[in-house]
């Protein structure tokens, strides 16, 4: 049988998918063990025991300075910023993208502006944001929004614009006004695409969040990673990175679930 025709079933697929990840963990464990056999004080590849001990302090024991469990306050601070940034971006992308895609006059007016903003590297705007919004939460959320919003708007607008002309004409012969076209034809068909756009924006959103936290913050996952880097605390950095990966995977899975549940029509094939 040709290789391209071998299709793993569900169980085999799960096993196959897990194998490289397990291999990665195993490789790390062997490398860590061999470094520690040579130098018990090695900090570069900490053992799982060292990671658990370090994380136990952060997860369970309140910090003597603030009285908070740092791991959780970092997590909630970061998720709060990320969630707010994503929420603002998603709602604005939907509204602006819908109007840009549907109404040619608006597209002609604001399309070039959106394109111009989209090509500016968001990190280059970070100093402006810090100057304008101060070093507080607003600047970090604004960085996420500026970082992902223009591309999301362009994606939604392009999707709405690409709706078959026949469909829009048909709707008009059925008596639909511009408002009804937006509400009943364009909006529902933009929704699955919007969820797709959010999923694709999660990666960049995390990048901007961690960058903003690394530069000016006193709490947050990115802040902690960059703080403990000074002490070469790989036993904290590595679990934090794994935790960020886990959060990102969970968000992606949740969005995929919402899309399949809420917009089943977009996932059916004949």
């Amino acid at each position: 049988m040709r290789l391209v025709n071998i299709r793993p079933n569900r169980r085999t697929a799960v096993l196959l998918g897990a194998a490289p990840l397990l291999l990665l963990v195993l490789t790390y464990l062997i490398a860590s063990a061999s470094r520690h056999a040579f130098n018990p004080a090695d900090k570069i590849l900490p053992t799982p025991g060292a990671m658990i001990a370090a994380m136990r302090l952060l997860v369970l024991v309140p910090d003597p300075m603030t009285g908070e469990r740092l791991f959780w306050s970092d997590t909630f601070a970061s998720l709060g910023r990320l969630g707010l940034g994503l929420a603002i971006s998603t709602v604005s992308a939907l509204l602006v993208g819908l109007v840009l895609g549907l109404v040619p006059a608006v597209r002609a007016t604001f399309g070039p502006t959106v394109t111009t903003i989209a090509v500016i590297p968001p990190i280059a705007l970070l100093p402006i944001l810090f100057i304008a919004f101060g070093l507080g939460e607003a600047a970090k959320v604004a960085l996420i929004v500026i970082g992902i919003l223009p591309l999301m708007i362009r994606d939604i607008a392009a999707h709405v614009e690409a709706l078959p002309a026949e469909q829009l004409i048909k709707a008009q012969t059925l008596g639909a006004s511009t408002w009804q076209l937006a509400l009943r034809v364009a909006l529902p068909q933009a929704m699955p695409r919007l969820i797709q756009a959010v999923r694709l924006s999660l990666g960049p959103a995390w990048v901007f969040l961690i960058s903003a936290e690394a530069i000016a913050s006193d709490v947050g996952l990115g802040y902690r990673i960059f703080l403990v880097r000074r002490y070469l605390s790989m036993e904290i950095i590595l679990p934090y990175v794994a935790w960020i990966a886990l959060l990102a995977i969970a968000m992606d899975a949740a969005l995929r679930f919402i899309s399949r549940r809420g917009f089943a029509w977009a996932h059916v094939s004949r």
Partner: protein
Amino acid sequence: MTAMLSLRNVWVEYGDKIVLERVDLDIAERSFVSIVGPSGAGKSTLLRLLLGQEAPTRGHILLDGKALKPECGPDRGVVFQRYSVFPHLDARHNVLFGLECARAPLTGRLFGGARRAGLAEADAMLAAVGLADSRHVYPAQMSGGMQQRLAIAQALVKRPRILLLDEPFGALDPGIRSDMHMLITRLWREHALTIAMVTHDIGEAFALATRVLTLDKRRHDPHAPHRYGATAVYDLTLDRRVAAESATASSITIDEIDNN
């Protein structure tokens, strides 16, 4: 029969390319007009004019004696070859859409009793096109023929003044196509429709219509082929079919009061 739709000296030009020239047409109420012609002879352009999707460069189009607005409206229904149903709505809500647009300008949705009444109307229309059992099916799960049936039901529920068909059966298998011919003939009679259909299939044009129009260029300049537009070069009234229709028309009750 009086002329319902009239074209007076209509020209369509794109830049220096002339697509249609001097088109003079009268389409009578309850006629079934097929429009045939070679590719590029302006068949679809003519249909877009009737639809109001574009305006003529010169000349006038009159619907019931009044100038036609260059914008699509609910007095003209349309079925395209593809993409004329909404993929995000199931069959029943595809048909309900037209009723909701008229009755709920702000929310675009009907609720309660109005919704039940609308759904009953939609279901009746679906039954009329033979989709009674597919009410909850989404277009993506339908065959091409079912999608076209749905598109017809969607248009007819609005009781349009004129139904425009743009190669509606062009993408269907021959067997399905003859089923659809029977369906459209039946609907045309029962709903007292006026139909204009663009088609590539001459057999289909003659089998269905009471009148066949052939669009083509009268003159041809080999050095500047784009400078002459097409017009109706043949206009055949199929007396045999007209006679057969008026015989059946007197024997059945036609609901023409409700047509808008």
